[in-house]
């Protein structure tokens, strides 16, 4: 089968909203859509050594079974949701019954969770067939997906480049037309930065807006699940579906999800008259910023001005310390979180060599050495240090105070403007291997995304075009106050619409053809 149906339509090139409309109109079945995406995965995804490698597990049988059930519901006139029957990919950090959940780690190789995360339960209840689980940096620690224990994901725009991280698999799956929708998680930019470097849309909701139940925690006070798509409207549709209060997550917020789809539709008109946009002075360029990224960012700004927005510069002076604060808070939280991987109740158990009847503690040490990769070990050790007696106040305590100052900067800024904007990442996708053994260089790429996690505010990354020097995608970030997620959709959709009007097409239409792997597309 090929990914083109008998009518000549390539269903993998459609947005989720278009697919939902086609399903509702009876132009296609969920089985056909799901099969088209499974065929695309078989054709381009490859494995650890070649191809996109967005997926760690593909569940063709399960997805088709869900698709058949969806078609039956629709035939009976009872679709479970607007997106019923539209397939989706899920980051391998979300628990799924019947499907492995490895978090990109050897520690959880082959582990099949006994319960569904709330996000996955909502997807199943809404009828979205789950195509499989996507690759990620181990336990979501990284900005390139190279820290996956199962081999890196490759950027569909250039297979020698990183797809961003930690959610490189979800972004690459959507960018490579292997899935119209995906779930990501964003602790310091892991949805938005992969979105930027793969030319896709990614949203980090307000902290607590989407349940963390069943999201294997990296840093509890920072983690947030959200949508990964090719259009802003699709993100809004998915966000409304997965968002909302969950009694199983005590940090879940009780406020209702704002009307995101309406906001995206309103923004798509391109009318932003009266909108006050603040450009964050500290994320406006300087050392480490690629000229082509800044050029595309400026063009998007000009488009907003031409459409009636008022653009001013706003300073958030403390965000220059955001990376340092983040790389103390995150290791502190993750060193505590990952203590649960003790080789006793689930996950890897390794017996130390040459020891007769080893103690539980010796088994724990050997298992944690064998199960965790370098980046995870670095962060656990750093966090152990930051939380240790005598250094707690100097490091973790200071970082928490910085968090207060950064939140205050945002609060002050949002008194002057409706939204804040910046490039999502300072550079386009770098080469695989380039920063793998230079943790600080890798961390530096997160400077524009981390502040939103520290403050708990929502953010979106939308495609802003291709950088002149390397022809690779650039992301435009929009931030809004906590609970005002609708604003990032309204402005994100406006930027998307204004730029697409200027280009005459969506950015993804320029994505290079991926080589179909020999023998893969029967």
């Amino acid at each position: 089968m090929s990914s083109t149906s008998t009518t000549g339509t390539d269903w993998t090139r459609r947005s989720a909203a278009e697919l939902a409309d086609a399903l509702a109109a009876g132009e296609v079945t969920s089985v056909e859509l799901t099969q088209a995406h499974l065929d695309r995965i078989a054709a381009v995804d490859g494995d650890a050594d070649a191809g996109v490698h967005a997926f760690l597990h593909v569940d063709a049988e399960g997805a088709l079974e869900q698709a058949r059930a969806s078609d039956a519901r629709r035939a009976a006139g009872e679709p479970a949701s607007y997106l019923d029957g539209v397939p989706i990919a899920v980051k391998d950090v979300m628990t799924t019954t019947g499907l492995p959940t490895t978090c990109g780690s050897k520690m959880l190789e082959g582990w099949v969770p006994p319960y569904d995360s709330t996000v996955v339960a909502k997807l199943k209840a809404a009828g979205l067939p789950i195509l499989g689980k996507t690759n990620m940096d181990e336990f979501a620690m990284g900005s390139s997906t190279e820290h996956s224990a199962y081999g890196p994901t490759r950027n569909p725009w250039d297979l020698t480049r990183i797809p961003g991280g930690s959610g490189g698999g979800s972004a690459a799956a959507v960018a490579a037309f292997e899935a119209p929708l995906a779930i990501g998680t964003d602790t310091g930019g892991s949805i938005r930065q992969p979105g930027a470097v793969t030319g896709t849309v990614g949203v980090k909701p307000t902290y607590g807006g989407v349940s963390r139940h069943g999201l294997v925690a990296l840093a509890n006070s920072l983690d947030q699940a959200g949508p990964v798509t090719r259009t802003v409207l699709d993100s809004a549709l998915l966000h409304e579906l997965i968002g909302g209060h969950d009694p199983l997550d005590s940090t879940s917020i009780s406020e209702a999800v704002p009307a995101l789809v309406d906001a995206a539709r309103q923004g798509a008109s391109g009318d932003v008259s009266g909108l006050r946009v603040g450009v964050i002075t500290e994320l406006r360029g300087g050392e480490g910023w690629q000229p082509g990224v800044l050029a595309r960012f400026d063009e998007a700004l000009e488009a907003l001005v031409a459409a009636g927005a008022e653009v001013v510069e706003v300073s958030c002076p403390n965000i220059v310390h955001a990376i340092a604060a983040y790389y103390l808070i995150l290791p502190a939280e993750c060193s505590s979180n990952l203590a649960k991987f003790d080789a006793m109740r689930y996950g890897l158990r390794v017996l130390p060599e040459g020891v007769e009847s080893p103690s539980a503690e010796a088994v724990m040490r050997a298992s944690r050495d064998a199960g965790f990769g370098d980046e995870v070990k670095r962060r656990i050790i750093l966090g152990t240090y930051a939380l240790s007696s005598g250094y707690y106040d100097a490091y973790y305590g200071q970082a928490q105070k910085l968090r207060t100052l950064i939140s205050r900067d945002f609060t002050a800024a949002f008194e002057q403007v409706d939204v804040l904007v910046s490039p999502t990442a300072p550079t386009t996708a770098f080469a695989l291997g380039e920063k793998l053994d230079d943790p600080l260089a890798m961390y530096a790429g997160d400077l524009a995304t981390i502040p939103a996690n520290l403050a708990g505010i929502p953010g979106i990354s939308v495609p802003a075009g291709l950088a002149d020097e390397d022809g690779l995608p650039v992301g435009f970030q929009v931030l809004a106050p906590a609970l005002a997620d609708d604003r990032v959709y309204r402005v994100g959709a406006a930027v998307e619409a204004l730029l697409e009007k200027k280009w005459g097409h969506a950015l993804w239409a320029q994505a290079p053809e991926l080589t179909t792997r020999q023998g893969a597309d029967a």
Partner: protein
Amino acid sequence: MPDTPPVLTRDQVAHLADLARIDLSDDELDHLAPQLSVILESVAAIQGVAGDDVPPTSHPIPMTNVFREDVVRPGLTAEQALSGAPAAEQQRFSVPRILGDEQ
């Protein structure tokens, strides 16, 4: 509180790894210790930025006393809970011996 950013020594990293219950090999210590020093020096830059009057933030969205209704709801069965266990016996997690090593 140290006046200058401390650089982690190899021995300190070994001690921290011990506290975190990770057996690091000599090669790993040689590799990770210098990297951790560089990271620590970099993040130490925040010391002194926030004054004593700044309260710490541990959670981005303020919340207090989150309760749920005290009602019984289904949980995992013993079989489900043990489904990922490296070893199980008589509906329990089976673990290596827990006594005997000096700490």
